[in-house]
């Protein structure tokens, strides 16, 4: 699989921000009262994610390690405000229905998370594709949650009445909407069932392949495991990424001079790769 394709696959399936990483729960739970809200929120977040990933990857050699978080937040906030202005001016209906949640994209941990875990350490192109993958994964996830909540809670899909609703006043029989699915608890319920369902599919796939469930063999390294759903070469990449991440954290606690050396090493490694 090509590298950039792997990034998109990673964002949608393997490390889906909503179902696997469980990131960005605020918008996931709050705006998914309808499928169209989900799409609007997902696409706005994707736009911000791609732009911020791109810019942070461009500036990764310039932004000093010790002030990277404020730098990320400034960049993300600037993009979010731009997206807000654009929505307000050109698609007021989307702006109306998302309201307060647009400015809240700034604190969406998917965006800061990807900046920190990926864009700050990788090339511009790869970061853009990482942003696209993660964005699509997020959009799909919250649209599905929104669709299910809307369907069960109001009998609608994308604002259209799919199931005729009972009207006791008019003496008309029909579907009685389960209102709790539109309310906050419904968001938790739908999310829990979707994560459970996804885990069930993963386990089933692992068993069908007559291979041990990844957790059992991961200790021996990925080469020994060979589990397809684990994605052989991919996981090893992912692992090095994570260990690098850990190194960064520990060095941060040590002296700043050392951090400089480490980041230099990291960029050297990257150049080699």
């Amino acid at each position, binding site marked *: 699989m090509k590298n950039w394709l792997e990034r998109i696959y990673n964002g949608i399936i393997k490390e889906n921000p909503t179902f696997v990483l469980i990131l960005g729960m605020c918008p996931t739970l709050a705006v998914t*009262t*309808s499928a169209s*809200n989900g799409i609007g929120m997902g696409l706005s977040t994707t736009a911000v994610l791609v732009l911020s990933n791109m810019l942070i990857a461009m*500036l990764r050699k*310039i*932004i*000093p390690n*010790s*002030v990277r978080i*404020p*730098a990320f937040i*400034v*960049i993300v*906030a*600037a993009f979010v*405000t*731009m997206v807000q*202005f*654009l929505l*307000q*001016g*050109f698609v*007021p209906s989307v702006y*109306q*229905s998302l*309201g*307060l949640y647009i400015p809240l994209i700034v604190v969406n941990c998917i965006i800061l998370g990807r900046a920190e875990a990926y864009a700050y350490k990788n090339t511009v192109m790869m970061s853009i594709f990482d942003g696209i993958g993660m964005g699509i994964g997020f959009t799909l996830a919250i649209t599905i949650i929104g669709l299910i909540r*809307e369907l069960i*809670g*109001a009998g*609608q899909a994308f604002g259209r009445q799919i199931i005729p609703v009972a009207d006791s006043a008019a003496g008309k029989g029909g579907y009685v*909407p389960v*209102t709790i699915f*539109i*309310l906050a608890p419904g968001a938790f319920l739908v999310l829990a069932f979707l994560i459970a369902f996804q885990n069930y599919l993963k386990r089933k796939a692992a068993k069908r392949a007559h291979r041990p469930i990844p957790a059992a063999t991961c200790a021996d390294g990925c080469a020994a495991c060979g589990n397809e759903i684990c994605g052989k070469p991919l996981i090893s990449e992912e692992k090095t990424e994570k260990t690098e991440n850990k190194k960064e954290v520990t060095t941060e606690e040590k002296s*700043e001079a050392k951090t400089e050396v480490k980041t230099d090493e990291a960029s050297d490694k990257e150049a080699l790769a």
Partner: protein
Amino acid sequence: MSKMIKNAIIITVITIVAGVALGLVYEITKVPIANAEENAKREAWQKVFPKAELADFETTEVDEEKAKEAAASVNANALIDEVCTVKGGDEGYVITVTDKEGYGGDVQITVGIASDGTVTGISFLELSETAGLGMKAKEPSFYEQYANKKTDSFYVSKDGGEGEKIDAISGATITSRAVTGAVNTALAYYRSAF
């Protein structure tokens, strides 16, 4: 120490660049945003006063004192945002009110009142209530309850009161109350100011 200064300079530059970029986007989108808001407002006016032409509407000044009194007299936490005359007040008035007591934020509506005090209709400018519950206020079955009624005040079925009864949206009493409060404020302002 020099490192600290270097970091400070870098973050300052990033912030300045971000600020300038934001300013540019703001300048570019200023006109479309104003247009979009103006269009939404005009559409709302037209909707609550179908008889009048667009040219008949004219914005007039809001009497802040009377607006406050009006809200207080109907026990609503609401503000009068804008008042429009239709044909100089001969045909009636269009009053834009924001009620602060919505479930998901402010509820901003436009109320059309004919010169004889009849509510000609209401329309929503800002409504961020729960989808499937409070958002049902946007369905004709709810908002048409206010139209073509001549009364001093409306009341939500659950609460009781004087005037015309409004059937609350099931599961969204707070939204129903906010909308009713806004309409009552507009009516009270109309009575005291005109």
